[in-house]
């Protein structure tokens, strides 16, 4: 493997060539204005991008900004997305959306995506992420940005206020835990299965609030949105972020003129290095009420869901809709099937590809391009005792509705197959 060939992605000091550093260290060092950083040390980083949505954004930070009499440090570096309280169906949600729109106008934020889909999907789709960036988001699934070799992590509203006012944030430089998947994943096995497997194996705190980096030929072969799923669920693994080194897939997705290689040095020390044979992974299902409650799909054949949900930043991107369509083509769902495409643009692409029609023909009901049930919001919350199978990231007790509802997490393949079979079903039986 060759040493990092440095291409200046953003302003600042270039990574040290004398010290072997992980991808996480290199990005943090650049953002801290240092040639190198060491895991465990506390540094202050300059933030390249701050993303907020309607729930944790203006309605929370505006009163605090007013109290401080402060303004946003650099409005070109702020991105706002409405995705939680849509469609606004009651007074509270209408108020939250209104506050968001008014603040965007008053603060002069140009990067505003209103009713365009879920922030983690919209952000890279509209070209806001670049390899080597240091970014924060007002949402726990912000590590999704790590798929683009950006260091991106979630923060709360008060911490976002700190970023908006100072343009900086403190960080304990993380160790890196490498998860390497060698070979190719089997047909009908996806990034979601890999993550449910890892969370089941290492636990909800397996990431130890360090950086996890996904590597190996299995990961390199994955399309961008599958890599996003890996990094997205670094949150459920308890990592601060998930990362994938940049390559030609990154370049093509972001339409970059040249490859901007950001990767770990080959000898950079790791906290742990776990290697897996990608081909050996079976579809996985996480039983209620924890994403760590994972077993292979064939242990759940007696579970009969009453609802199948394909939604959220984790499980309803274009790539996820394609997976569902590969199962659903020419078939009918036996249980209620709800599909909430993660972004408007992904939905439009799905329509062009004919995928959307396949889903609709199978009986799927189309919901808004928003967080919806996954955020515990909207008209479709799960009633008492309902059993659901979902392509989302979390099945915590009561998250998606009544405390007595039961949510099984699985890949879009498995959710679609289960909708067809009327019981939790191995998608490899139905792949066409």
């Amino acid at each position, binding site marked *: 493997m060759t040493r990092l060939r440095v291409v200046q992605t953003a302003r600042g000091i270039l990574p040290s060539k004398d010290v072997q550093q992980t991808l996480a260290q290199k990005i943090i060092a650049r953002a801290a204005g240092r040639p190198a950083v060491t895991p465990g040390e*506390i540094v202050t980083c300059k933030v390249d991008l701050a993303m907020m949505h309607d*729930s*944790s954004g203006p309605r*929370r930070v505006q009163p*605090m900004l007013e*109290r*401080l*009499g*402060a303004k946003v440090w650099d409005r070109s570096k702020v991105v706002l997305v409405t995705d*939680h*309280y849509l469609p606004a169906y*009651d007074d*509270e*949600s209408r108020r*939250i959306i209104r506050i968001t729109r008014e603040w965007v106008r008053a603060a002069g934020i140009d990067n505003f995506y209103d009713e365009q889909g879920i922030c983690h999907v919209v952000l890279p789709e509209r070209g806001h992420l670049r390899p080597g960036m240091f970014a924060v988001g*007002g*949402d*726990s699934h*912000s590590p999704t940005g790590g798929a683009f070799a950006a260091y991106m*992590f*979630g*923060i*709360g*509203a*008060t*911490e976002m*206020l*700190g970023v908006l*006012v*100072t343009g900086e944030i*403190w960080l304990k430089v993380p160790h890196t835990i490498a998860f390497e998947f060698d070979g190719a994943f089997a047909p009908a096995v996806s990034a979601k299965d890999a993550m449910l497997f890892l969370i089941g194996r290492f*636990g*909800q*705190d397996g990431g130890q*609030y360090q950086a996890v980096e996904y590597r190996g030929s299995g990961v390199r072969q994955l399309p961008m949105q599958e890599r996003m799923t890996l990094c997205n669920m670094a*949150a459920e693994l*308890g990592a*601060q972020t998930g990362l994938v080194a940049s390559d030609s897939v990154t370049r093509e997705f972001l339409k970059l003129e040249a490859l901007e290689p950001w990767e770990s040095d080959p000898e950079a020390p790791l906290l742990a290095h776990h290697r897996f044979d990608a081909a050996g992974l079976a579809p996985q299902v996480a039983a209620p009420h*924890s994403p*760590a409650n994972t077993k292979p799909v064939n242990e759940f054949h007696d579970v009969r869901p009453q609802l199948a949900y394909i939604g959220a930043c984790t499980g309803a991107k274009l790539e996820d809709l394609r997976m569902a369509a590969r199962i659903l083509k020419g078939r009918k769902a036996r249980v209620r099937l709800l599909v909430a495409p993660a972004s408007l643009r992904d939905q439009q692409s799905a329509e062009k590809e004919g995928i959307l029609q396949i889903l609709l023909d199978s009986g799927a009901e189309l919901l808004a391009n928003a967080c919806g049930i996954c*955020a*515990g*919001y909207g008209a479709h*919350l799960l009633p008492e005792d309902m059993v659901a199978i979902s392509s989302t990231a*979390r099945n*915590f*007790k*009561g*998250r998606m*509705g009544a*405390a007595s509802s039961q949510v099984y997490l699985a890949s879009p393949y498995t959710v679609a197959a289960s909708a067809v079979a009327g019981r939790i079903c191995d998608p490899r039986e139905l792949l066409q």
Partner: protein
Amino acid sequence: MRSWVFGDNVDTDVIAPGRYMKFGVEEIAPHCFEAVLPEFARSVRPGDVVVAGRNFGAGSSREQAPAALKHLGIAALVAESFAGLFYRNALNLGLAAVVCAQAKSIRDGDRVRVEAETGRISNLTTGEILTCEAIPPHLMQMVRDGGLLAHLEKRLGRPR
């Protein structure tokens, strides 16, 4: 200073359920721990302490989770470990979060005194003294100031 003891991986949806997130903290707080301990919000008293196992506060970035606990008067959180994002949020709100390897030695209902600056916990029921991790020095000033907002207010100077 009564302790309320919870297990491992207590998530933010249990602490602050998503369906109430559209409201302010005063309306969220009565639903704190509703799915696992419905009587918690009405039984908890100011000065009480929440004690938990591993990975307390897993899940969402919603700051309303530590805010609800603070609103109910919780004086400190003690856990074997915290979810990183939740830990930052708690300290940013000025709510002390103490990492304590022996957290499981505290029984539900024990009366405890938590000294966040030193990481010393006195179990007044058993007489046991637990030596735990102090809040990191680079964050202590912020916690002393009452959280990040008050800290920034001090740092930037009050505008009015």
